[in-house]
């Protein structure tokens, strides 16, 4: 563990992150193959900025998020957190008591507020738990902090919500409780895994705006995992597109949407329905493909579906993510 800090404002830097899950096998039998759920992924998140991780289900975006909060242990790679309180740490290597300290700095918000809250616990119990685990403050102090935070997340007046149970709350209110719980110990970095995809349209925007306000107020950065490019556009300064365990493109949000370079990103953007009945979209047609990267062949992961692929793409390993100028990175031989 080094104590040097970056001066360029990087908060999280992920290098060569991998997670391979064994398929089959058992207690005395070695697994024959592996799912390459996350395969050599690198990116950086600047302080106070948020990165959107976009891709279809099964592309490895949630696995990446769970490694960043160490709910999964990486197979290989580094996750450097550059933090005023704990210095620079490789999260991929922290253990035991250190892990507990680092959980003060990094938190997660889950997709489904109906499953992520314990139905037998009151709002107060749920939100106060991180403080109790970390041994911060006494009861009166904690109660004040919980009340203050409930006010901030829009559960007002706080004393009417404190002792309610999850079943007495709507979906939007539950997600607000989950946000309060993630923020109570003042983290610098939050992994938000589709936090609004289960919410109704009119509720969703409220929660998105709340998350943005709180990010500004507490100087928190998000890794915002979503399948919805339109939501990522509103929540994130940068977007990274994932496909079968690999990052295929990463750029500033408006740049990525206006000038997608990777054929998969182009297909993805052209397929998003537009809320305007007169608009005719031109779709980039791509072929169907496999759903899981089990022992993938040594060429571009997108090779089988790519309309532009040639022999070079087939005979060479998956292309590296290269900067094509102004931080617009893409992993494709044809660009």
């Amino acid at each position, binding site marked *: 563990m080094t104590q040097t800090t970056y001066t360029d404002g990087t908060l999280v830097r992920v290098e060569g992150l991998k997670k391979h899950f064994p398929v089959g096998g058992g207690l005395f039998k070695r697994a024959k193959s592996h799912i390459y759920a996350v395969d050599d992924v690198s990116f950086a998140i600047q302080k106070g900025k948020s990165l959107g991780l976009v891709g*279809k289900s099964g592309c490895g975006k949630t696995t990446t998020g769970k490694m960043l909060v160490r709910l999964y242990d990486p197979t290989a790679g580094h996750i450097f957190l550059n933090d005023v309180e704990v210095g620079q740490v490789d999260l991929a290597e922290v253990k035991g008591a250190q892990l507990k300290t680092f959980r003060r700095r990094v938190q997660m918000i889950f997709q489904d507020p109906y499953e992520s809250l314990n139905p037998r616990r009151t709002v107060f119990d749920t939100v106060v738990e991180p403080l109790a685990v970390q041994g911060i403050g006494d009861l009166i102090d904690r109660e004040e902090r919980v009340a203050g935070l409930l006010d901030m997340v829009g559960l007002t007046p706080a004393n009417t919500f404190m002792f309610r149970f999850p079943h007495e709350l709507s979906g939007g209110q539950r997600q607000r409780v989950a946000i309060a719980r993630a923020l109570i110990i003042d983290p610098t970095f939050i992994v938000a895994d589709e936090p609004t995809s289960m919410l109704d349209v009119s509720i969703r925007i409220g929660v998105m705006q709340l998350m943005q306000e709180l990010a500004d107020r507490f100087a928190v950065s998000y890794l915002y995992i979503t399948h919805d490019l339109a939501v990522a556009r509103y929540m994130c300064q940068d977007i990274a597109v994932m496909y079968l365990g690999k990052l295929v493109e990463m750029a500033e949000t408006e740049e990525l949407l206006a000038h997608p370079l990777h054929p998969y990103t182009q297909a993805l953007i052209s397929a998003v329905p537009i809320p305007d009945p007169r608009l005719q979209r031109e779709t980039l047609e791509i072929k169907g493909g496999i759903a899981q990267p089990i022992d993938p062949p040594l060429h571009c992961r997108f090779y089988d579906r790519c309309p532009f692929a040639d022999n070079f793409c087939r005979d060479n390993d998956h292309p590296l993510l290269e900067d094509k100028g102004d931080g617009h990175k893409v992993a494709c031989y044809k660009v």
Partner: protein
Amino acid sequence: MSLLLSVHDLTMHYATRKGEVSAVDNVSFDLAKGQSLGLVGESGCGKTSIVFALMRLLPENGMIKNGYIMLDGKDIVAMDYAALLKVRWRKIAMVFQAAMNALNPVYTVGQQIIEALELHLSNISPAQARERIAILFELVGLDPALMDRYPHEFSGGMRQRAVIAMALSCSPDIIIADEPTTALDVIVQDRILKRIRELQRELNMAMIYISHDIAVIAEVSDRIGVMYAGRMAEMAESADIFDRPMHPYTYALMGAFPSIKGKRRDLKTLPGEPPDLLDPPSGCRFHPRCPYATDVCREKQPDFTPVNGASRSDLTHGHYVACWHPMQGVTL
């Protein structure tokens, strides 16, 4: 355009331990032959309940309190079981939300469609049925050889196509699609949406497409009905709903929808939450969240009123809104 289906003052309740839930309240709409109507609204707005009523597939605690659903001069609400069998699949077919659950895992996909064909079209031979399925599979973009495979061998998108083929099997006049693409990824969703729309036009079927996603609705509908808390708030041609929304809820719904195209506009929040339909608000059900609400909105329910000279008797065209203070000429 000739009138095909007419839903008039439909009112539905669900009995629960806490009391009766007013899920659908005085909803009316008409559907012309070959017309595509999109019903959009948030969960609990009553859009799926309307589908249950159209197919008469109500859950045990559901009841139709009032209204009629006229199809070919007959009222679906009053039909007995034998009459219903003649309507289901042959007149109105349905594409369900979860294709995974709509298919039986222990039969091949072909067998399941044959079963539907034999039940609804008497005197069809097995060979004829297979021939028909092959045509249907090609229509929805599946290899006919796949009909002897089991559902687990299909991907999510293929299953959804198979379910669409099944719905088309008896050449229905009306196809109802209840969020058929929500579980699919964007690229697959796009393909299915396009195919559904093409088929609907090629076969000149009428369609009722249900979704919470106004962008999806915009892509598949000639006409859009916006529902809120069990009532129809507004109904008009798709372009009019987008260009000239008159109900404050429609306006709010559009403003709350992020898009990846065009300028990045600020999204507007709608305060509050949809009401509890065990005890719906008095007057207009939207009034507690409406920025323009006045006393009359709190006291009296607004009628579903034609605007710009639309006719009251034929809801297949024209602009209708249920609001005491409809918005005029407001653009997003």
